[in-house]
C-alpha cells in the first residue's frame, strides 16, 4: 500500500505552533513514523534535501543572519550549541604577574585579561595553532599551541600638563590601561603567520583593563591557548548565536478603518500595512468587506519583523479576528562573531563538528560491538 499523502493545507497546518494570549499550542514536532497512521515519515536524505532550504539575509565577517527552513529543532539547536560551546578559539589562559601595584588585585586582573577577545591571521589561528594538549612530536614545539603576550605599563606624571589639571588622562601618562596595550611576542614559526596586518591583537582595542595613578605599574606575561566554550565562556567564538522561529500572523476576519490603524500599532513598524478595500472586494458577498469600499484594511506586510509581543491579543476588538503563530521548522539564526572566525564559517564549522562527532562515535560503536 502506498503511503497516505496528506494535503498541502494539512501539512502547512501541522507546521504552525499556536500562540495565544497566555498559552502556546502544538509545540512538539510530530513528523515521526507512526504518529499519523498510514503516512511515511521515515528519514529520507533525498526528501530532506528537497524540503530543506537556506536563506541568507546578512553575511558580514562579524555578523550574519540566515534562515534554515525544513529542519527539526533538535538539529538546529545542536548547531547553535556547538557554535557557542564547541568551536575552538584563542584566549588568555595563564597570567604571570611580575609586578602589579595597581589597585586591581592580581586574580581580578587575570580574570579580566582572560575575557579580552583576540584576532589575527585566520590561517594562523585556525590551521597553525593546535590544541595545547597535542602530544607526540609537537609537544615541545611551543609555538604550535601557546601564544605569548605581554602587558608592561607604568603610570607617570605628565610634566607638560597644565597646573591644577584634574583630568587624570591629561595629568598623567597611562592613567588608563587598554586592551591595545597588550603586546604580542611572536615565538618560533609564529612569525610566519602573525606579522604586519595579521598580528595577534585585541578585537576591541579600547577595552579598559585597569586605571593607574602615578607610581603604579602593571607588568604581566600572558599565555594564550586554544580552548572551547564548554570549558570557559572566554573561549566561545561567538558573541551571540541564537535563533527564533518565523512568526505568522493570520487575519481571519477583516480589520477595517480606525481598528486597522490601531491593529498596525500593536506590531513593530512594517509588520502590518494598510490597504484600501477595492470595489471588487466590497462587491463580493460574504467577504466581510461589503459596504466598506474605500476604507482602510489591515494586511500582513512582513511577519518576520514581528517580535510576537502578542499586544493585539489584549484588545477586545480584535478577538477572533487574528491568529498568531510560529513556523516550527523555520529557524532564523543570528550569529555574531567575536573576531577569530567569520560568522558564516562558524555555522559551517558547527555542521562539520556535528558530523565529526557522529563519525568518531560510529567508529567507537563498531569497536565496542566487535
Amino acid at each position, binding site marked *: 500500500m502506498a503511503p497516505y499523502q496528506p494535503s498541502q493545507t494539512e501539512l502547512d497546518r501541522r507546521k504552525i505552533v499556536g500562540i495565544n494570549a497566555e498559552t502556546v499550542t502544538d509545540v512538539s514536532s510530530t513528523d515521526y513514523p507512526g504518529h499519523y497512521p498510514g503516512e511515511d515519515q521515515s528519514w529520507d536524505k533525498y526528501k530532506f534535501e528537497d524540503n530543506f532550504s537556506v536563506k541568507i539575509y546578512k553575511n558580514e565577517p562579524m555578523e550574519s543572519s540566515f534562515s534554515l527552513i525544513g529542519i527539526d529543532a533538535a538539529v538546529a539547536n545542536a548547531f547553535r550549541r556547538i557554535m557557542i560551546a564547541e568551536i575552538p578559539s584563542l584566549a588568555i589562559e595563564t597570567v604571570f604577574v611580575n609586578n602589579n601595584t595597581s589597585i586591581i588585585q592580581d586574580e581580578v586582573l587575570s580574570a579580566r585579561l582572560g575575557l579580552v577577545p583576540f584576532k589575527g591571521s585566520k590561517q594562523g589561528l585556525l590551521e597553525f595553532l593546535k590544541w595545547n594538549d597535542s602530544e607526540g612530536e609537537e609537544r615541545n614545539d611551543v609555538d604550535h599551541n601557546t601564544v605569548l603576550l605581554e602587558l608592561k605599563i607604568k603610570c607617570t606624571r605628565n610634566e607638560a600638563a597644565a597646573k591644577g589639571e584634574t583630568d587624570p588622562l591629561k595629568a598623567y601618562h597611562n592613567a588608563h590601561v587598554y586592551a591595545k596595550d597588550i603586546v604580542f611576542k611572536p615565538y618560533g614559526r609564529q612569525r610566519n603567520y602573525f606579522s604586519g596586518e595579521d598580528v595577534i591583537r585585541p578585537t576591541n582595542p579600547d577595552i579598559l583593563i585597569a586605571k593607574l595613578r602615578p607610581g603604579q605599574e602593571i607588568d604581566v606575561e600572558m599565555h594564550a591557548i586554544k580552548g572551547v566554550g564548554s570549558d570557559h565562556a572566554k573561549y566561545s567564538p561567538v558573541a551571540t548565536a541564537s535563533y527564533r522561529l518565523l512568526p505568522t500572523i493570520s487575519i481571519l476576519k477583516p480589520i477595517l478603518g480606525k481598528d486597522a490603524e490601531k491593529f498596525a500599532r500593536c506590531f513593530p513598524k512594517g509588520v502590518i500595512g494598510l490597504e484600501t478595500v477595492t470595489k471588487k472586494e466590497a462587491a463580493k458577498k460574504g467577504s466581510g468587506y461589503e459596504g466598506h469600499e474605500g476604507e482602510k484594511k489591515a494586511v500582513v506586510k512582513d511577519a518576520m519583523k514581528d517580535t510576537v509581543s502578542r499586544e493585539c491579543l489584549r484588545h477586545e476588538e480584535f478577538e477572533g479576528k487574528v491568529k498568531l503563530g510560529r513556523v516550527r521548522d523555520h529557524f532564523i539564526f543570528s550569529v555574531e562573531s567575536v573576531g577569530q572566525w567569520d560568522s558564516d564559517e562558524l555555522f559551517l564549522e558547527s555542521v562539520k563538528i556535528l558530523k565529526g562527532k*557522529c563519525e568518531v*562515535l560510529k567508529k567507537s560503536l563498531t569497536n565496542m560491538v566487535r
Partner: protein
Amino acid sequence: MPPKKRVPAAATAQEEDVSMADASPAPAASPELDYDIEIDDQRIRILPGASDTAASFEFKKEDHTLGNALRYIIMKNPDVEFCGYSIPHPSEELMNIRIQTYEGTTAVDALEKGFSDLMDLCDVVSEKFQEERLNFIDQMKA
C-alpha cells in the same frame, strides 16, 4: 518551637558509631591489557540489562547537543519503537540513549543508522548553505 534538647556529642557518637571494615583492595590491573588507552578511546558502552532489541547506551563527554539530535534522527527510523535520551546527573559528563526496536533489527543497528543519517543530514545542510552563500554573494554584486 520548643528548644531542642541537646544531646552530648560524645553520647550520640558512641551510639551511631559503627565499626567499618576496610574496603576490599582494588582489583589488580591485569598486566596484558593497557586499560588506560582502551578506556579513553571507547566512549560508548552498553548499560547492563540490554537485549538485542532494547538497549541503553552510555556516551562519555556528550550532552544535549548530540543527545537530542541523535534522538530525533533515531526516532525517524520506522523500525524503532522507542528512543529517548537523558543526562543522569548535571555534574557528570555522561549522556544516556535508550533505544527499543521492533523485531527484525537491533538497537545497535538502529544507533548505527542514526549516526549515518545524521551525517547525511549534515552534508545536505552544509552543501545547501554554501550554495546559498554563493547565490547571496552574486546577489550582492548585482
